[in-house]
């Protein structure tokens, strides 16, 4: 038996002595009695004289009562010492139970029938571990997926820990073992008898398994030989370099010195065929078509056959049967696929109809990597209305872009009938700033806006401006050079980021090209005029390559397309998603495939995105007041060959050290006694109370 109570023995002894003294004194000190007047005490005297014949028994009863009280006191004080049975041979441990909840744990090979997942088995093993804990053991449950999430504090409350374990669900992300081991080691720092139990299928990338140090990190000692040679500069430089190298290495590794790490393997099957890459892109030249790249791999040890199907929305674009040798990785490229209104693409690996006797694997227990998702920016021919007097430069530049359908009206015609712009995707106002503009989502491009209806407030007019700086990060200004563009004059815009406005080109500090997001539509305002007949302002911009590029970029931005816009992200990694020119957003709301909504910060136009599920995500950028500014769609895929390789590892080696299994989960067989002692004490108190009030012990 051991005593694990937090009270020092000397303090306990003092308290025990005091309490015992108090109890005995209470029996010795004369009891204060209620006075009662009787007419003839002589009769009482006679009765008591008869009772006094049993005086010895009466004294004995009183003594028994005192002993009973001392016994109760002793039991309570003994319980305060936290006596523990069986804790002598094995000290109480602090255990961190790492439960792998990564994607591979969703493999349905927990049992022979394939009805239970690996995670179900892992939770069962973890609960068995918790149930075998002794009274002195403390355990912390941590979920390991793309993040390391402590699910509890250190506790010995087995029912509570089991309930927490029951609530763990697997995510669609690879496991970040390094982060989990680091968190576990930090949690166990300065705790006695630390133990980490990893319940997993062992599907971790090799680099993560190597980032472990079993010895305490010791910084490199200065080289005494170099010091002795008296070359202080060289010595200092060499030492600093060594220290830097040492720091870099040790910051990345997890220090598991003095920590016992055990491994509980789960999983049975290794046969799996999964999509490990799925990409889609538009052709730069023909944005009405796209190309798809799919890469699948057979991780099993036997040949496999699958149906590979590509869907655009719900339309099956292509279907083919692929055969994969053991370990074979095969890439499929789908070229010149026509775009449709639906921008969602999905590739699916479906079981193939195979003869069981053929030895070909037709299906696998891990369905998560059998599907992958991608998004194609919606593409269609834009209807562009040019509100201009005959401007050959503009019309000629528009001709280079074959993905538009052009319409042209004069400013007078437009003013007379603004409804001419209805149904247009883009309206270009050349040297005209009407009071009535088409309603969203029609986007607007202004050349030299003037007057009170200008889309971006005009601060002043600048003579002979020179473009000194452009926002190359904005999709409109991509690949554009304007440094040698000449212009007579230009409006200078008063850009207000709070209104969703941003400057695209500056003359020194004066914005002369501005972009704006106005709800569902986008606006670009160019401060200078295009050359045309009868205009006094002049620029050589249309003579430059930058002009058609500017038009194409602007129309692409209006259409929500960018050649290098990434819309597919891997799960389990924190990515920074550019918000496609959205200015002024401070927060974004991310709605996941499972309907879960999270809010993420937007910093410098980049939203932090972490996908825990595969599928499509809706990201809504919001301003400081919480108003939605723009919407973006994203797709997240597992895309992790390490995670798709579901072959369970019966043994796991961390930093070159093979991890042993826990000793039949018998971490400590100690048994806490305090609860039983208190129960006995309470029972005795009840007995004492009843016998006293029934006047048996008095």
């Amino acid at each position, binding site marked *: 038996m051991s005593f694990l109570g937090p009270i020092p023995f000397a303090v306990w002894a003092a308290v025990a002595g005091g309490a015992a003294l108090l109890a005995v004194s209470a029996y010795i000190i004369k009891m204060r009695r209620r006075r*009662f007047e009787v*007419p003839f005490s002589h009769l*009482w005297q006679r009765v008591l004289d008869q009772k006094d014949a049993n005086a010895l028994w009466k004294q004995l009863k009183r003594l028994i009562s005192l002993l009973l009280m001392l016994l109760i006191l002793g039991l309570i004080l003994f319980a305060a010492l936290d006596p523990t049975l069986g804790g002598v041979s094995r000290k109480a441990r602090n255990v961190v139970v790492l439960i792998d909840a990564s994607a591979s744990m969703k493999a349905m090979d927990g049992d022979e029938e394939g009805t239970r997942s690996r995670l179900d088995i892992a939770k069962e093993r973890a609960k068995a571990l918790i149930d075998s804990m002794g009274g002195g053991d403390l355990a912390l449950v941590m979920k390991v997926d793309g993040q390391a999430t402590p699910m509890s504090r250190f506790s010995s409350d087995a029912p509570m820990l089991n309930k927490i374990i029951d609530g763990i669900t697997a995510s669609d992300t690879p496991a970040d073992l390094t982060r989990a081991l680091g968190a576990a080691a930090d949690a166990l720092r300065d705790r006695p008898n630390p133990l980490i139990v990893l319940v997993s299928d062992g599907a971790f990338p090799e680099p993560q398994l190597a980032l472990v140090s079993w010895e305490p990190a010791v910084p490199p000692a200065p080289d005494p030989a170099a010091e002795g040679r008296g070359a202080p500069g060289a010595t200092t430089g060499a030492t600093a370099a060594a220290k830097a190298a040492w720091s870099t290495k040790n910051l990345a590794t997890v220090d598991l010195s003095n920590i016992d790490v055990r491994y509980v393997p789960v999983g049975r099957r290794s046969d799996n065929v999964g999509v490990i890459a799925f990409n889609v892109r538009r052709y730069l030249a023909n944005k009405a078509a796209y190309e798809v790249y799919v890469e699948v791999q057979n991780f099993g040890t036997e040949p496999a056959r699958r149906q590979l199907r590509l869907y655009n929305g719900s339309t099956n674009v292509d279907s083919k049967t692929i055969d994969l040798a053991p370990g074979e990785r095969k890439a499929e490229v789908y070229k010149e696929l026509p775009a449709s209104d639906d921008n969602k693409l999905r590739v699916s690996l479906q079981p193939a109809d195979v003869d069981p006797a053929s030895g070909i694997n037709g299906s696998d227990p891990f369905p998560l990597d059998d599907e992958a998702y991608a998004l194609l920016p919606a593409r269609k021919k834009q209807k562009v209305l040019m509100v201009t007097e005959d401007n050959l430069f503009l019309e000629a530049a528009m001709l280079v872009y074959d993905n538009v359908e052009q319409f042209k009206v004069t400013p007078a015609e437009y003013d007379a009938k603004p409804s001419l712009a209805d149904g247009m995707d883009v309206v270009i106002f050349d040297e005209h700033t009407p009071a009535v503009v088409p309603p969203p989502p029609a986007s607007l491009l202004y050349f030299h806006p003037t007057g009170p209806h200008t889309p971006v407030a005009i601060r002043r007019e600048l003579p002979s401006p020179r473009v000194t700086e452009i926002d190359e990060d904005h999709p409109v200004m991509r690949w554009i050079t304007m440094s040698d563009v000449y212009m007579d004059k230009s409006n200078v815009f008063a850009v207000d980021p709070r209104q969703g406005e941003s400057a695209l080109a500056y003359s020194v500090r004066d914005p002369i090209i501005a972009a704006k997001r106005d709800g569902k539509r986008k606006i670009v305002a160019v401060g200078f005029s295009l050359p045309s007949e009868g205009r006094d302002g002049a620029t050589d911009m249309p003579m430059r390559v930058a002009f058609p590029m500017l038009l194409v970029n602007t129309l692409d931005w209006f259409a929500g397309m960018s050649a290098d816009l990434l819309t597919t992200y891997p799960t389990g990694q924190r990515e920074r998603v550019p918000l496609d020119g959205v200015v002024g957003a401070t927060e974004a709301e991310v709605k996941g495939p499972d309907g879960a909504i999270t809010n993420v910060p937007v910093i410098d136009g980049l939203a932090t995105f972490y996908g825990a599920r595969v599928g499509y995500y809706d990201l809504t950028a919001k301003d400081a007041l919480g108003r939605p500014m723009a919407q973006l769609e994203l797709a997240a895929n597992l895309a992790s060959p390490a995670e798709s390789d579901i072959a369970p590892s019966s043994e796991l080696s961390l930093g070159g050290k093979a991890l042993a299994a826990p000793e039949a989960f018998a971490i400590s067989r100690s048994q806490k006694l305090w609860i039983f002692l208190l129960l006995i004490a309470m029972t005795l108190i009840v007995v004492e109370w009843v016998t006293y009030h029934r006047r048996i012990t008095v």
Partner: protein
Amino acid sequence: MVSRKVFSGALRAERRTRKVGSGIEFADHRTYARGDDFRYIDWNLYGRLDKLLLRLFEEEEDLSIYILVDVSDSMAIGQPLPKLHYAMQIGAALTYVGLANLDRVAIIPFADRLIDRLPPSRGKNRIFRVFEFLKSCGIGGKTELAECMKTFVTQNKRRGLAVVISDFYDPDGFEQGLNTLRYNKFEPFVLQVYDKREAEPSLAGDLELVDCETGDVREVTVSKSLLEAYQREHERYCKQLEAYCTKYAMPFFRTHTSIPFDELVLKIFRSGGFLR
């Protein structure tokens, strides 16, 4: 009030005596002697027997009744009214009965001594004086029955009925006091008054019992068994008193304060033969 003994009175009244005199109840004949009153010669017998015989009549005199009321401290206990109140009510009622019967009734409160004394008086009109006396008489002290009775017989030479109304809670016992009355030719009439709560107290817990007369303190832890033992002891004490009275032919009544005193006087005393 029925007296079993025949006491000689002082005045003519309604009680027979052993005296032969001028009453109306015929008693006997005797031979005529010279000097006798001719009016009492039985002439019928002289005609038949030819002898002069004189008719004798019983003399009717009054009876001395002493109402001895215990006014010790123990009589001041009782709920809702103390036993003393009840005892005084009974004493007053019996006094009235005696006065109405032309008996000489005296009231003597006692405790550790004879505290006061209402001299023997006759006639119903004295009842108000009795009330005033009872109202004003002092109370308190220990019960010392023997001493009081000794003083009483010394002070009252005229024998008669001695009605002792008390709880008889005398640590020295009741026997000697009652014997003193008997030995001095008084006819004791014993009336024990008690309160039901003192016979069956509802006590519990750790108590300090204080004797209201002696001040003796006794620490007890009252349990159910102890209470039962006390009740038995109280009953035994009362039975002892009753047995003693029965043994020496002393009329004995025991009553508790819950019985209305008029019912006690009119029904119980009458059915018990104490009142006619």
